[in-house]
Each structure stands twice: as C-alpha cells, then as structure tokens.
C-alpha cells in the first residue's frame, strides 16, 4: 500500500515559554516491510537547534530547541510511505515453553532488551496467569500468541475515558478496559512474564470513513500494537485492539520496550504554565500512480 502520512502535534501554552528542549519521534523508520520517502518536516516556530539521530532501537529521533519566547509549538510531518504485506506465517512453531527456555540463556542484546522489565511494564505473576489461559502447556508459540491477541480483542473494552498515561497496567488488566496503548502493554507484559520477548510498536492505522461519506482530515489516529519473536521467522506484529496480525494497513513509526521509549514528543521547558495538546493524524491511501516513494 502507498500512503501519505501526516502527523501534527500542537501545544498551546497559557504562559510564554522561554526555552524548550524537545525530542520527537515522528519520522517513520524503515522496516523489512516498509519503505519511507523523504519526510517533509515543519516545526513552528523555527527551532534554533535541530539534529537527527538514531536511538538504540534504531528509531529516528529529532532533537530541537526553541530558544526564543513562544506560546505555541507545532510539529508537522508529512511522509510518503510504502508498505508491503507480511509474508505467510510459519506452518509450524515449537512449544512456547521450549522457546522461552532457549531465550533464557540467549545472550543477544536485541533479544534480552525486549524480554526484561521496562519503564511502564513490570513482569509479574498476575500477568503470567493471564497469559497462561492462552499459553497452555506444550501449545505452539505462534498459536498461543495469536490466541492471546484474540483474547484481549474479545474481552477488553475500548474505553478512552478509563485510562491515562499514568494508569498502572494492573488496573487495565483488572478492569479489562483501556486504549490501544494499554492493550499493547498488557500483551507485552503477559508475554514477558512468561519469559518471551515482546516490543511495543507505535504507528498508524488507516480508518475507513462511513459508507458514502468523504474522509475527514485529521480524523485518523496514532495507533499502537506489539510484536513478539518467532524463532527462525522473525518479529510477528499483533494488534490486540483489532484482533489482527498487523501488516500492510499498519504503517510503522517507531518501536521500543514500551510507550516511554517511543513517545512522539517529549520536552523540558521553562515557563509555559498550563498547556493544551492537539494531535492530528491523517493516513491517506494513495493509488500507485499518484505517488511512489522515492526510496
């Protein structure tokens, strides 16, 4: 699929900000199934300092600093992107315990990075118990992981009013409600509590307008899902919010251990008082002949 992604983050402050250092993860990364064209980045007001780097997860990080007094901050990125479908899932996979056991002694950095605790996700027995309803003894890993994805999809209620960034994972699990980010966190926590690696993926999801109505600009949303490691196959991306395997319709922005690693915009500022946040996201599907990403 070809998309044009537009992502705007806008802050309005009640008092002037005199200095602000920020870090944005809004430039989509290249993946095995995704190619990105050159992003068109607009920051307003124009920052005095700007630098791009890759973080330890391979995400593109944009550092910028506003050193003059300002009262709004607007970061808009437009990126043409091409996504490819995920290849066929492996026909067979080993029992999950066997893989967990192998990974326990695995010294590879990229494997252990996603197996241990992270800022928002601590492994615990409660999560392990939840996971074991799908990860029954001897069940193949792939089948178990898909079942977990389905379980969250079917038994958790999507409820944006219930959670905030600060809601503990245990509350989400107990009340079985939350948003995509919470569902991804629950699934990751469940997998890690069994000794399996799982990473958090931030990205987008194309939404379909109701039949007969035009697309509304800015109506799409950021999305989040997760991926777990299937040996000899790769990272399998699961979207528990929709109960699907994430693929062509899931353009990827960044990944990390949990939300804290991939927050779209972080900053430390002087002044500012109260602030209001607006986020606008558009995932505009393109026909192949209107746009082809340059790389």
């Amino acid at each position: 699929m070809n998309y044009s992604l537009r992502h705007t983050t806008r802050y309005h402050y009640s008092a002037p900000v005199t200095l602000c250092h920020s870090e944005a993860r809004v430039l989509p990364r290249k993946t095995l199934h995704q190619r990105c064209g050159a992003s068109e980045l607009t920051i307003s007001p124009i920052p005095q300092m700007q630098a791009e780097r890759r973080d330890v997860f391979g995400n593109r990080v944009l550092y910028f600093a506003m050193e003059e007094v300002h009262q709004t901050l607007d970061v808009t990125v437009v990126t043409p992107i091409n996504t490819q479908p995920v290849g066929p899932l492996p026909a067979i996979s080993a029992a999950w315990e066997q893989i967990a056991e192998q990974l326990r002694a695995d010294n590879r950095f990229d494997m252990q990075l996603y197996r241990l605790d992270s800022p928002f996700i601590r492994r615990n027995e409660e999560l392990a118990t939840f996971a074991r309803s799908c990860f029954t003894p001897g069940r193949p890993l792939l089948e178990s992981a898909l079942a977990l994805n389905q379980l969250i999809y079917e038994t958790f209620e999507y409820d944006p009013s219930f959670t905030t960034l600060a809601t503990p994972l245990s509350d989400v699990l107990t009340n079985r409600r939350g948003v995509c980010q919470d569902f991804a966190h629950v699934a990751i926590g469940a997998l890690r509590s069994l000794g399996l690696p799982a990473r958090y993926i931030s990205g987008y999801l194309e939404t379909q307008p109701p039949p007969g109505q035009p697309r509304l600009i800015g109506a799409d949303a950021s999305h989040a899902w997760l991926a777990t490691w299937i040996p000899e196959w790769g990272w399998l991306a699961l979207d528990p919010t929709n109960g699907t395997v994430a693929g062509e319709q899931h353009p990827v922005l960044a990944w990390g251990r949990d939300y804290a690693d991939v927050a779209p915009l972080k900053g430390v500022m002087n002044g500012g008082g109260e602030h209001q946040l607006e986020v606008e996201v558009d995932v505009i599907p393109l026909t192949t002949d209107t746009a082809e990403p340059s790389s």
Partner: protein
Amino acid sequence: MTAPVSPSLIELGTAGLVEDYLNQLGKGQPGTFDALLDRQGQLRLGWQSLLGALEALGSNGRFQQHEEIQRLLAENGVIFNMHDDTHGRAWRLDPLPWVIDQAQWQTLEMGLAQRSRLLNALYNDIYGARTLFDAGLLPTQAILASSHFLLPCHSSQPTDRPAINFHGVDVIQDAAGQWRVFGDRLQAPSGTGFALENRILMARALPEMYRNAPLKRLAGFLDNYHRTLTALAYQHRDNPNVVLLTPGPGSPRYFEHAYLANYLNIDLAEGQDMVVRDGQLWLRTLGGLQPVDVVLRHCDDAYCDPLELRGDSQLGVPGLLQAARSSGVAMSNALGVGVLELPELADYLPALCEHLLGEPLLLANADGNTRPSTAPVFDHKMQRLTPSTLNLRCFVSRTPGSVNTLGQQPNDYHVMPGGLAWVGAPGSSSLSSPVVKDVWVTANTPQPHVSQLRQARGPVVATRDGTDLPSRVAESLFWLGRYGERLDSRARLLREALMRLMEYDQDDIADQLLDELLLALDITTLNNAGENTRPLLVGFAQKRTALLAQFGKSEPQALQPLFAQLLRNARSVRDHLGDDSWRVVHQLRQRVDMLNPSVSASAARRACEGLSAQLAAFFGLCNETMPHHYGWRFMDIGRFLDRVLGLLSLLKLTLNAPHSPGLALWEVVLATTDNFTAYRRRYRSELHPEAILDLLLFDETNPRSVGYMLKRLERQMDKLPGSSSPYRNAERRLLIQANAALHLADIDRISHLADTPEAQEALEQLLDDLITPLNALSDAISHSHFSHIERPRQLVSMEPDE
C-alpha cells in the same frame, strides 16, 4: 597465663609498640600477610623511621598529636561539610600512615591503569557497537536490568574524547598480600578530597615526619588531572572554562565538591546555574551567559539531564546529553559509565581483558572467600597498635597527553600515589568508617614538594570585574548579608530585653521598656499565636519564657532558625568565602548550637553579645579578604538594606510606643544600634530625641545612620553590572526616592518632637517615605540581577509507577 597488664601502666620499651603488635598478630591467624611485619616478624621497608618517631613521642605525645589532628579535622569538617544533619565525618585520622613500598605499589599501579583502560574500552563497546553482548562476553540480562545502564547514552560519547578520565577503585590486600578489587567508582568518584585532606593534615600535624619521609607527593597527580580536564575542551582550548557539577549543598558529598573545586581552582556549579543553548552549555552569571567547556561531573549519570534521562531530576541540565553528543561540552566522565560499576561484571573481566586489550587481567576481583590482610592502627588512646582490616580507594586519571588520541595505549592512565584508606570490613563504606589513614607510597629518592598553585601554562586571563560570578552565588551572598544583619539586630534587641528582664520589678520604667522591646521583637504570648492583636505578656515568668523561647528552635524569628538561613546561604557560596571567614562561621555555629530556652537570662545575654561580636568578625573578615567585586557588593547591599530597614522600623516603633517610657526608650535605640557612645561623645549631655534623630537619620559620618547607609547603598549599586537592564531604572528610582525623602525632610518641624504632635506626624511620614521604597528595593534588585529561573518542567510527564 598472666592477667593482662594495662599498657598505660607500663612504659613500653623502644621496640614496645612493634613487640606488642607482633604478640597480637601471633594470636590471630599466622601466615596472614601483614602490612607492617613480614613472616619473620621483621619490619617491612619504609616503616622504620616513621615508627621510631611515633615511638619517641610516647603515648602522651601521640595523644597530643592525635588531638591536634582531630582539631584540624573537625575544623575542616565544618569549613567544608555543608550537610545540615551531619556534623562532618565521624572518623578519626590515624597518626600512623599506611606505608606501601615502591615494589608493592608498582604491582597495584599497573593493575589499576590496566583496569581503567579496560573499562574505557568496555564503555565504547557497550554504548557503541555492542559486539560483546552477542559474543557472550557480557552478562546481557544483568546489564539490561541495571538502572545504571542508560539506553539514551547509546553512541552519545564523541569518539575523539575518552569516556573515562577519572576512575576510583576500591581495593584490599588479601591474606596472601595480593591486591584484590572490590569495586569501581566512575559516575562521581569521591574520596580524592578526603585523601588530599588527610595528607595536608598529616603534614601540618606531623611536619617533621612528613618532611623527611621519601614519599610520593599527591599534588603532581591533581595538577595533571587539571591539565587532563583542560585538554578535554573542544573550544577555548587556551583557557577553557571547567566547572564541577555538584548536586548542591544537600548532597552528603558536598564537602568534597567544595574542597576539590577549591583545590583545582574551578567553579562549583549546580544544575540550575547552567543552561543549554545553541547546543552548548552555559553558566548563568551576572555578566550574562558564559560558555562552559568541560564538566567535571559529581552528579550521578541518571540525574544529569531531565530531557533524556530521569525526567524527575532537579539536579541536571535539560539538553546536557545532546550537548555532549554534539561536542558542545566535554564530560568527565561520560554519561552512562555507571553501568561499568556493576558487580556482575567481575567474573567477565578476565576474558574481556584478553579480548579487548590482548593482555591477561592483572588485578583480580575480590570475592566472598577473600580473606583480608592486616595492618597496624593505633587504638583510640594512641597506646597500642592493633591489627586491623584496611580498605583502600585508589584514583586513576587519564594522562593529559592521551586525551586526544584514538585507540588505547599502555600509558593512557596514571595512578595517584596514595589514596584514601579506611578501617572496616572489606568493601564497607568509607563514610561510615571510624578510622581513616593517609597512604604513603615510598619513593627511592626524596620527592620535591609541589606547590598547590600550579605553574601557569597558558596566558593569564584576569577576571577582575567579577561579571563571571554565577547569578545564584550573587543571590546567596545578598541573602547572606541580609540574614547576617537580621541576626545581629535581633541579638542586640534580645540583649537589651534580657537586661531589662534581669532588673525586673525594680523600676517601673525598666518594666515598661521590656514591654516595648517585646513588641519590637514581635513576641506574643504563646497561647495567642493565631490572633492578630498581640496581647501583652503579663508577669515576669511569662515574659521570661517568651524571651528565652527565642533561644530555641520553634520560633521562626528565633536566633537558631535565622542562623540556619544564614548558614544555608553561606554554604552555597562556600568557594567564594575565605577560610578564615569560615572559621568564624564554624565558631558561630558552635555558639548557636549551644543555645537553648533553658539557659539563664544572664547566660543568654552573654550569648547575644558573643553572637554580635562574631557576626562583626565574620563580615569584617569578608570585607578584608574578599575581592571587592560584584559578589562582595551584593553582600554589602544585603547587609545595609536590612540594617536600614531594621533601624527605620525600630524608630517607628519608638515613635508610637504605647507605653510612652519617653527618653528611656530612645536610650535603648541608641544601645541596640551601638550608638550610645557616639551620642555621649558628641553631645555630652542628657538625651534629646532631636539629637538622637540627627545622629541616627541625617549624620552621614555615622555608619549607623540612615543617611550613611543610603549613601553606601547608592555607591554599591552604581557599580553593579548591567546598567542597560530595564529593571535598573526601577532600582535606581527607589533609591533616589528614599534619598529625596531624607534630604527634603523638614528638620525644623521634626526637631520639636517632644513637644508637638505635628512633629511626630512629620517624623512618621518621613519614616514611611523611607520604608516604602527601601522595602521595594530588595525585589527590584532581585529582578534585575538574580535569574529567577523557573524550574524546567516536563512537557509530558513520563514517570510511570515507581
């Protein structure tokens, strides 16, 4: 077996100390390595003359030496230890140093230098290519689980600067005499200041022993370290600005930070004193932002940058990691080094050393089975030497010449010839140790004494104007002046009140005066604290209790809380005040610590007098020793602003005295402002309010008069920097307003004070016309000179459940 004889009863022979020690060793575990005696019971190299000298002193002589050392230690402790709740290090410094001969030392030295090279190479891989994890050479899970492993530090250290420039290593000597490592200190390697202090104290307390000993000196090492720091700079390489980043006076290590900054002659800065702009680090000073080229970091990794590291940290500078990443500032050590302190690495080091350096690891780590050797330590009476376990913290620094070279060379690091030794179980904390020792590394030849003042190498850059003074320091000096003055004026008022209390019931006027003074002191009955009206205290006992409560801790305006404010401000500018001034602060502190509400009135009065005298000594010393640049001016402005406000409010109170004790109260005014003698000399007569007013308001030759104080404020403010600031106008206008009120006062009208109510009104008007602008002046000065930085805040709080 005979009953043990107390050693104090027998005079030990010439070899008594050693014989006695040998006997004790025999009872221990034979075969265990001892620092003093070899297996044949013979003295090891280097101890002979030292022991001879200590032996010759006799136990009384040694005890005197010990007391001298402790006195110096305590004094240093108060001079440098800024922590509120501790009274310095609890340890004593043993008069017998730990002597390590050159051969033993070289083994250790080579091992330490290798370890620094190893850890530096390890840092580069862990935060760089990360090949060692996948090669199975590192405990991947332990590292990932460690809170000291900081993912944002991944490839943040520019390759043209070493990650490790300073390394503290804790070692012990095991039962076989082998050096074994207990731990590494890299984030904020402390202890150098203590090692230096111990050496300086030994040299002062035992000058003969120290001068004659062929021991390696420490100054050269620190001199080199300073050059290393300088060499790290990316810009201003001729004269880079190096600062020591401290968490502030709240840190238990602040002692060392102040001591070290002082010794290395670099600025002591807190995170809030600095800001990142244009990808560089800057120090906020009175003269604006000054670039900072190198940070000597004594703040833990995770707290250094709330943007990328711990978001809840108030100690760091937002954007610091990015500034380091983009070579806007050089860090010593690099952020993220804390992961190298992980104890789990110990087992991996031998293989890592082979892999990274192609050498066998020279120094093995200690483990649970490591048995320590013994070393002699004097008992607390200085009578016997007892075999004890010693820990040693060694210090390694990058050599100045190797800072800009890539790759690693065997001589990239060098070791301080000495260190901090403390008594305690292997691996125990130094700060909780009862006894510390100086460490003497013997040299084959006498060593030259290196002066603390380094030989200049670059051009001399004079900063005589003081615009490079951090704004926070200026602010603290201003408040130091204000609190000092407030403490003084309260002590004087209390003294007068206590004198009246002691004469209570003998004279009506004295009794009424006491009431006025209680009013001036703003003292109410304890039961009516919540009410607006301040009912007068009734009866001697009540008044006495209320007055003496000012010597306790609960009243906010009591002497101790005021002193605590003074001390807080003084501490944060420690490196701007002279040592002698600090001794006075120490004495003041001792005096204030002894105050309590159960003292007698006469003792309390004496305490007040002592307090005033010591405050005068403190400010006098400051005037004599501080360069008269901006910092001093702010302190002076603080003092005189508080003093003039205190005098004006006292005059106003006198004017409105409800109990009208008449002239007697004016006498008190003269006494509290220390003008009684001046008045007598000038007027040689009875008290006339008019004459007193002239002396206290208009006489510009009298340093206690309002006229003089306004002149002084004006003179100081004229010389402050930043005359272009819009706030400066406000500041000047307020002072002109006060000056005008004073100069335009109708003296004739006021001079009939005793007779007419109009005169009283006119005086009251004048006092108000002075008080209003002067009250506003303090705020105006703050706005114009002190950066009122709001604490930086997070855009989005990313602090999950802890």
